[in-house]
């Protein structure tokens, strides 16, 4: 999955799961996520659950930091890395069998 695909799907999750009355362009054009909605623990939890379901991944609690949720790019890079790590683990697991 390309980085652009990951970003598109995160924007979709944001609008759909947080029920934001924004269009995708407004989300793409933002420099910080806290310009789009109040970044309280409820919104962050909803966003994490939405991303986990969308990409079928688990975001470990110890990974959660302010830096990841700074902007769309940092969040996209984190999810992309997580997808890559999980894919690597899967391939390594396949090799062992």
């Amino acid at each position: 999955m390309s980085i652009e695909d990951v970003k598109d799907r995160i924007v979709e999750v944001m609008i759909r799961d947080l029920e934001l009355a924004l269009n995708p362009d407004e989300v793409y054009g933002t420099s910080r996520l806290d310009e789009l909605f109040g970044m309280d623990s409820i919104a962050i939890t909803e966003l994490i659950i939405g991303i986990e379901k969308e990409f079928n991944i688990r975001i470990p609690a110890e990974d959660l930091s302010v830096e990841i949720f700074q902007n769309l790019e940092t969040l996209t890079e984190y999810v992309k890395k997580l997808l890559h790590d999980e894919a690597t683990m899967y391939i390594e697991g396949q090799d062992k069998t």
Partner: protein
Amino acid sequence: MLKDVLGALAVAHPLKQAIRCGDLMLTYDELFIMKERVKKYFAEELRIQKGDKMAFHLPNCADFIYSFFSAAEIGAVTIPLNTNFKESELRYYTSKCGIKTIITHSDLLAQWGQMPLMEKTLNFVLMDQLEWPTVDLKAESLLKSNPFSPDVAAIDSEILYLCTSGSSGRPKIIPKTPALLFSGAENLGTALDVGSQDRFLCVTPFFHANGFENSMFLPIINGASLVLMREFSPRSMLDVLAQEEITVLIGSPFIFSSLCDCADKAYDFSAMRHCLSAGAPLPAELKKTFYDTFGIKVREHYGASETGPVSVQFQDADEVGAVGKPLNNVRVKILDEEGRQLPPDMMGEVFISSTSMVKGYLDEPELSSEAFPSGYFRTGDFGMLDSEGNLHIVGRNKAIINLAGIKIDPSEIRNTLLSYPKVKDAYVTGVKNRKGMEVIKAIIVAHPDCTAKDIVIFCRDRLAAFKIPRLIEFRDSIPVDVMGKVIRSVVEK
């Protein structure tokens, strides 16, 4: 009285786990010793005296618990402040309550903006920066050398101010005494049969009445074990619930819904005795999903900051808003608009009286007499008592937004919006999202170049994140009636 409790617990079971918070574990013995040390520090170093007001700007942590008992024994007033508050909100409560000392952690200091530098009369105490000697004494030996002294905090002196959202545009302060706290804990503790064998997971923030009274004070005075979560993370919480063999969980519909969303393996929750949901109506579908997922029934718990715990729905009921029979020492009556008491099964406004109810709000005689007529608290909720004495809550008549159990006054948000030069008029309300929970919606009349993003950025610096409207809709006007009152039925369409 409070000193007797911790001292007695330390003597009765010194090695029993009192608190676990991440890697930190304190036994009741160590909790007592820490409380003694902090109390000495408060009294001798900070010169805290009876009646002094101390803000607790802390997450759920051990510092909060022993600092509260220390302050209470001195006779000082603890004022827990929401850790999401921004500078303007913190400044308001500091001034309103006459706070002089702020107990906090270094990672929360930035939220106070310039106040630590500019306000020379305020003393900021960073609990995480203080160093205490390693705990190496047993409480019993300390008690023998330092027997109980008469308590400074009388049973009826105010030791806690809870901050609550008001319906009239200004937040209210609810003063609590040890007598009220003990009474509330007894009323709920008896119903749940809480004892020292229990293990509570404390995820509801201690700056809320429900978190403070039911998740912290209640288990501590019963000698139970508390597992604290500084922040809410549903996946970590699922693991903690199983690993720590939690027996009591007090949460909100949002917490239970998030747990269901994150469950992706089998968990052993066989130790669980009570899962209570409070703060907002518990959707029937969520109740069912939680039971299907974990095999545990979530019980609806009803109460108010002003009254303490009111009821728990112990019987199985699919009906939303069935909150059970009033607890011991709690009376409920339903009145019509003319103030006449209604018979069973008739819908009206819910009034509560209980042994844990406050007499009124701090420095608000008029508001207090309106809210506490004839020894009852006017909840603002609509409901009925059925013929078996079960209370049913069906709605609210106060325009308060209920965000996952946090009550928010829409006029506070509206006033902030109106202070933005691009906004001409605004209306703020709560709307249900697709999960049946309330989110904040702002309907705004603004200059043509104003965007939703402008609104969020403006609010971001002035309001706690949870108060920023999730939905922002621009309209040409907000309809008002001949009296100038907003026509809710039209504007909320």
